[in-house]
C-alpha cells in the first residue's frame, strides 16, 4: 500500500478521504503487544490444524503398550522419539496435542460460526420486527441466560445424546444470547440514525436495509464478541469432553484427553495431566488477548 499524497490539485473528495479503515485498525491493533502475541499464537494453531498430518510424527490413535507413559525428552527415561512423552496406552502426546487443534480449536470455531449465524439472524429479526416476535425471542434468550451455561449444555447433550457434533450444537445454543442481544441493540441504535431513514426513504427494502445498511455497522462489536466467544466455546467444549459427554475417545480433543488422564494424577505421570490443560489455557488466553485487542482497536472510544 502506498501513502496517498494529498496535493492541492487533487479533487476535494480525495483530499478528505480518511485513511483506509484497515490501516487505521492495524495501527491501533499492532500497538497492543498482547493482542499481536495472541494473533501469532492462533496463527500457529491454525497452521497445526491445516498441516497436522505433516507436523505430527505419529497418528493420534493406535496404542503401543511397550512404550506407555514414557516421560518427556528432558526427563530421565525420555527420548527424542516422543518429545512430550506418551500417554497411558503409549500414544505420542505431541502428536495428539497437534491433532487436538482440529478438535478443540476447529470445533470452537464451528460453534462460534453456528452461533453467530443463528444469533445474527434472530437479532436482526427481533430488531426489525419488534412487538410480539421480539418479546418472544428476548424472553427465550433470558431463559438461556438464567441457566448456568454448562448445565444447559449438559441438558442439551442429554437430550441429543453425547458426541462431538451434539456438543457443538449445545455450546452454540449456550453462547447464542450474546449475539442476539448485541445485534438487536445495534439494529435499534442504527435504525434510529438518519442514514437508515434516508435509505428507507430512497426505497430500500427491508432485507436490503438489514444486510446492506445495518449489518455492516454492527460488524465491529460482532467480531470482538466472536473472538471472546471462541474462548468460551473452547472452554465449554473441553469441559463437555472432560465430563465424557463431548468428543469421544480416541479423538484427541484436549478436554477428552484430560478425562483419560484423570486417573494418573496420583502417580508421577504429570505430563499426561499437565500438557493438554496447558494447551487449552494458552489457546483461551490467546483468544482473550486477541478479543481485548480487537475491542480496543475497533472501538477506540472504549479504551480505558
Amino acid at each position, binding site marked *: 500500500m502506498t501513502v496517498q499524497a494529498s496535493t492541492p490539485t487533487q479533487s476535494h473528495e480525495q483530499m478528505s478521504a480518511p485513511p483506509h479503515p484497515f490501516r487505521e485498525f492495524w495501527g491501533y491493533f499492532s500497538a497492543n503487544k498482547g493482542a499481536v502475541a495472541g494473533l501469532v499464537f492462533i496463527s500457529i494453531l491454525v497452521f497445526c490444524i491445516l498441516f497436522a498430518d505433516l507436523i505430527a510424527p505419529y497418528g493420534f490413535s493406535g496404542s503401543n503398550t511397550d512404550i506407555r507413559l514414557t516421560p518427556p525428552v528432558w526427563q530421565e527415561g525420555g527420548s527424542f522419539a516422543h518429545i512430550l512423552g506418551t500417554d497411558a496406552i503409549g500414544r505420542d502426546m505431541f502428536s495428539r496435542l497437534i491433532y487436538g487443534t482440529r478438535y478443540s480449536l476447529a470445533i470452537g470455531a464451528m460453534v462460534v460460526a453456528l452461533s453467530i449465524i443463528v444469533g445474527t439472524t434472530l437479532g436482526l429479526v427481533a430488531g426489525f420486527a419488534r412487538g410480539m416476535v421480539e418479546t418472544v425471542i428476548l424472553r427465550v434468550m433470558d431463559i438461556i441466560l438464567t441457566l448456568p451455561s454448562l448445565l444447559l449444555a449438559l441438558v442439551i447433550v442429554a437430550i441429543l445424546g453425547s458426541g462431538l457434533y451434539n456438543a457443538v450444537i449445545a455450546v452454540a445454543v449456550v453462547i447464542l444470547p450474546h449475539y442476539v442481544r448485541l445485534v438487536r441493540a445495534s439494529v435499534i441504535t442504527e435504525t434510529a440514525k438518519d442514514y437508515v431513514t434516508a435509505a428507507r426513504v430512497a426505497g430500500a427494502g427491508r432485507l436490503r436495509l438489514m444486510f446492506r445498511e445495518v449489518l455492516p455497522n454492527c460488524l465491529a462489536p460482532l467480531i470482538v464478541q466472536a473472538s471472546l466467544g471462541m474462548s468460551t466455546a473452547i472452554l465449554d467444549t473441553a469441559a463437555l469432553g*472432560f465430563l465424557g459427554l463431548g468428543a469421544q475417545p480416541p479423538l484427541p480433543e484436549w478436554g477428552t484427553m484430560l478425562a483419560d488422564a*484423570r486417573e494418573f494424577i496420583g502417580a508421577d505421570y504429570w505430563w499426561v*495431566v499437565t500438557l493438554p490443560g496447558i494447551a487449552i489455557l494458552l489457546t483461551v488466553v490467546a483468544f482473550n488477548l486477541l478479543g481485548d485487542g480487537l475491542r480496543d482497536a475497533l472501538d477506540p472510544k472504549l479504551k480505558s
Partner: protein
Amino acid sequence: MIRFIFTRLSLIIPTFIGLTLAAFFLIRLVPGDPIETLAGERGISPERHAQLLAEYGLDQPLIVQYGYYIQRLFHGDLGQSIVTNTSVWTEFKTLFPATLELAICAMIFALVIGLPAGVFAALRRNTIVDQGVMGGALIGYSMPIFWWGLLLIMLFSNTLGWTPVNGRISVMYFFEPVTGFMLIDSLLSGEEGAFASAASHLVLPAVVLGTVPLAVIARMTRSSMLEVLGEDYIRTARAKGLPAYRVIALHALRNALIPVVTVIGLQIGVLMTGAILTEYVFSWPGVGTWLLQAIMRRDYPVLQGGILLIGCMVMLINLLVDLAYSFINPRIRSSR
C-alpha cells in the same frame, strides 16, 4: 424502594413461566414418550403403557398436561427420581447446602483477594504491579477450571500431601447434619479435629471455584477504580486534606464498588457452571454431582426438577444482587 422491588419481581415472572415451560418440554424432547423414559431400559407392556399414560394424564393435550405440571409444582411436587425413587425436592434439599457452602467460600476467596488486587493495580497503574495483576487475571479467567482442579490435587494432595483428595470430611467423623454446612456442623458436633478436617477438604475446591470470579472481580475493580479516581469528587476529597487511605478506601472504593456488585451478580451463573466441574473433580457431594449423575443415568425427572430449581435460584440471587445494588447506589435507592 417497595416499587423498585415490585418492578424487579414483575420482570422475573415471565422468565419464571418460560423456565417452567422449558423444564416441561425438555422431557418431551427426549425421543420416546415419558413413560418409556420412566420405564427406562426395562421395557414395558403395551397395556401397562396405556394405563400409565392415562394415569399420568399423558393422553391429554399438551396444554392440559402443562396445567397439571404447574399444579403439581405449586404443591411442591417436583417429581421423583427414577433411580432412587426419592422425591427430587428432598434430594435437592439435602445436597444443596454442600454446593452453597462451596460457592460461598469460593466467593469469599474471590472477593478477599480480587478486590484488593484490583484496587492495588489501579493505584499502581501501568507499573509492574499492575501488569502482574492483570496478567494473573487474564490467566485466571482463561482457566479451564477442571484442569486447574486436577493440577492442584496433583500438587497439594498427592505430591505435598497437605490436603485430602475428595469428599467434604474425613470418614473418621460422623454426625447428623444440622445446618448442612459442614464447617458449622463440624463445630457443633464438638468432635475434635472435625472442623480442621472439613476445612482442609474445602480449601482446594473453594480455590478452584473462586479462581474465575476472582479474576473477573480484580479486572472490574481495577477499571472501575481507575474511572472513579479521575472523578471530580475525588479531587474534592483530596482538596479537603483527607489522608490518602481515606480518599481511596472510602470515597473512591465506595463508588467503584457499584459496578463491581453487578459483575458479582453475573458471576453467580458462572459459579454454578464451575460448581458442576469442581464437584466432579473433587467428588464433592453437591447439586452439581447430582445433576451430572442424573444426566449419565438419564434420570430425566431429576434433570427437569434440577433445572427449574437452579434457574429459580439464579433468578433469586440476581434479584438479591439487584437489591444490594440499589442499596449501595443512593441514586437508585431514592429516585424510584
